[in-house]
């Protein structure tokens, strides 16, 4: 099949590819955001304006609330807007439109309205962007019925999940971790490689402990699993890919096999996605747990600017190894 062709792309280029492919496929798809017509701060939308024109690739004023409001309205009227919020930290300014409008309209209109909106944004502590440009805020949106939350970890998933998100009739928050932008991987073309929302990927099979890792923590968890294997600890690494809908079945099946669960994300541990996954997993697999569920996340403090402190702030493979070792002793 011609669709099976693969090429090596960066995460960023995979995002661009997905946008291009979907815009070419469906004229309703449009892109809005600050500087998107010139490629955006990291180049994710580079070339789109040239190819599809500035009517479909719209530069907006620096006003997240206004951008989101426009996009919600466009979505209700039949367009499939992909809004770019430059840093997830700025999403606070668009919360009302996203949480009170986008997430509620389908429900409050008795199903008459649909909001096929994708909000692309990026997150993560890397490159000393400091406390207002580095947060991981995905957990906030898990608390809002009506919004799907997606966090890809590989270029293939970035493309595959973004295409699925654009074709979804619900608001989807599509969170890209900045540290992954220049990572490379094989990416498929055409209709191949679309990743349905709500399906986890088992990145490495294992028997002794399940490590659910989000986004950039997947590669850290895989590196940790390699080190743990040398000690005879077999870790299964699961990348949930989308947080809502969550593929609880895959996680629970794994926990029933390994009897131990660790959830790792870069976001602050307290109140994070780890708590939600832990809750759902223990409910689904309580009688199979042989140790308390553990989570690993950033400390409860703003992201430091200092490169040294920033490195210490983000969980890494060494921390995962140490936590798993502790978990095995529990």
């Amino acid at each position, binding site marked *: 099949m011609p669709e099976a062709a693969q090429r090596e792309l960066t995460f960023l280029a995979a995002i661009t590819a997905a946008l291009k492919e979907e815009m070419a496929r469906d004229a309703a798809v449009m892109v809005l955001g600050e500087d998107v017509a010139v490629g955006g701060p990291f180049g994710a939308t580079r070339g789109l304006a040239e190819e599809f024109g500035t009517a479909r690739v719209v530069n907006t004023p620096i006003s997240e609330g206004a951008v989101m409001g426009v996009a919600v309205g466009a979505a209700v009227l039949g367009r499939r807007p992909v809004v770019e919020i430059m840093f997830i930290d700025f999403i606070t300014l668009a919360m009302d439109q996203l949480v009170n409008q986008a997430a509620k309209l389908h429900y409050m209109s008795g199903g008459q309205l649909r909001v096929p909106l994708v909000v692309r944004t990026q997150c993560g502590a890397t490159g000393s962007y400091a406390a207002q440009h580095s947060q991981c805020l995905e957990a906030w949106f898990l608390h809002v019925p009506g919004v799907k939350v997606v966090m890809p970890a590989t270029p293939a998933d970035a493309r595959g999940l973004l295409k699925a998100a654009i074709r979804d009739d619900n608001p989807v928050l599509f969170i890209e971790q900045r540290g992954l932008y220049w990572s490379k991987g094989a990416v498929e073309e055409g209709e191949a490689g679309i990743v349905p929302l709500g399906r986890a990927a088992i990145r490495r099979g294992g028997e002794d402990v399940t490590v659910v890792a989000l986004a950039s923590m997947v590669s850290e968890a895989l590196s940790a699993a390699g080190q743990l294997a040398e000690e005879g600890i077999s870790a299964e690494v699961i990348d949930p890919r989308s947080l809502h809908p969550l593929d609880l079945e895959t996680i629970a099946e794994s926990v029933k096999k390994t*009897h131990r669960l660790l959830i790792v994300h870069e976001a602050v*541990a*307290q109140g994070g996605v780890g708590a939600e996954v832990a809750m759902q997993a223990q409910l689904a697999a*309580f*009688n*199979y*747990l*042989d*140790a308390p569920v*553990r*989570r*690993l*996340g*950033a*400390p*409860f*403090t*703003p992201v430091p600017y200092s490169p040294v402190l920033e490195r*210490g702030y983000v*969980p*890494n493979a*060494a*921390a995962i*190894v*140490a*936590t798993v070792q*502790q978990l095995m*002793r*529990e």
Partner: protein
Amino acid sequence: MATFVLMPKLGQEMTEGTLLCWLKQEGEDVVKGEPIAEIETPKVTAEVEAPADGVLLKHLVPEGATVPCQEAIAVIGAAAEDIPPLPPKFPTAPASAAQEVPAPATPFTPGADHAEAELSAAGSDGRAGRPQRAGEEGGRSVPAPVPEAGGSKFGYVPASPLAKRLAREHGIELRGVRGSGSAGSVRARDLQPLIAASRRLAPLDVPPGAAPLPQRGIVIPHSSMRRRIAERVLQSTQRLPHFFISLDIDMGEALKLRAGAAPRLAQQVGVEVTINDLLVKAAALALRQHPLLNSSWTDEGIRVHAEINIGVVVALEEGLIVPVVRRADEKPLAQVCRELRTLSTRARDGSLRRQETSGGTFSISNLGMHHIDRFTAIINEPESAVLAVGSIAERAVAREGQLLVRPMMTATLSCDHRVIDGVVGSAFLNRLREILESPNLLLVEEPERH
């Protein structure tokens, strides 16, 4: 500082003990080394000694409670001292029955940066930038939960959900299982040996295709003695290559000796001499000449024991127990007789002490009183042989062309073939016959062994 008195671990296989009675009451003065409680294991009873001088502040378990080894059973301290609120458990406690109470663990745990995953930056005092380790929940420090030592008093056994489910599925009593998890909590790994044992034993382990077990009937829960017997015989039959040799012994002379010696011995010892006494003494003398029968297979080599300690199987209502007559070869028959009587009595009333059931080097099992002609016994590891004797009964015996009726007894020796070959076993058994057929040898004061 208060000192906890722990349930002692009186040997590798002891996992729990039952507190029979308190010898010291709360508020009483105790001196280090003084017995304060009597405990019972499936095999023995023993006394728990005070690990320190002071006042017995509190009993942590009631009489009759069964408590895992190394769990606190009482607190000793100064008269007005407060009882420490959280008697800890000691996952790898030393053999000593006492443990000083450690200082409370600080919530700060040095380790990998994110191992605890929780750093609380700005406390309510707003001192941001001076992160403080905190517990999992809410940024406050939450000490690791420590189950109360009185836990078993209330029937609560800390265990993971998986361990509880496995215990339920395999009919294992969690109480008494030694937990290796945090704060002594039982984990699946702690149950694996028991599950392996129960799987081999489980009557429900029907081969595929076989008819299911009838559902009617009763289930007799395993007592700890039953479970222990099951484990030991299973292990022995699976690990030791047993072989069996038998011969018939003419017990006429031995019965005569018994009849002749009985009154004198009765006078000396106050009890009647029994066939078992003669068997113990005879086996001990035969073992002197055939030391391989008095040895153990080890990885280093065959360990030939310096002492000849003969275990005698005593049947009990709920199972059996094997008290040991030590250095039986060196003791006069009268003394063997007296000791064996004491041991049997103590075995039946459950008051055997640990040292009275350990250290055996050879065992004898006698079903003669139950009119069994012959049988084979399972070797009591780490011993290498066991003698099984049947009843003494009149049988027709051909001797020098004559048909005689003689009181005969069949003795069957089970041997661990790793240690003992057929000829070696036979030589021992023949020597045993010689002694029993010329039982005056039992009365001769044997020279010390060289």
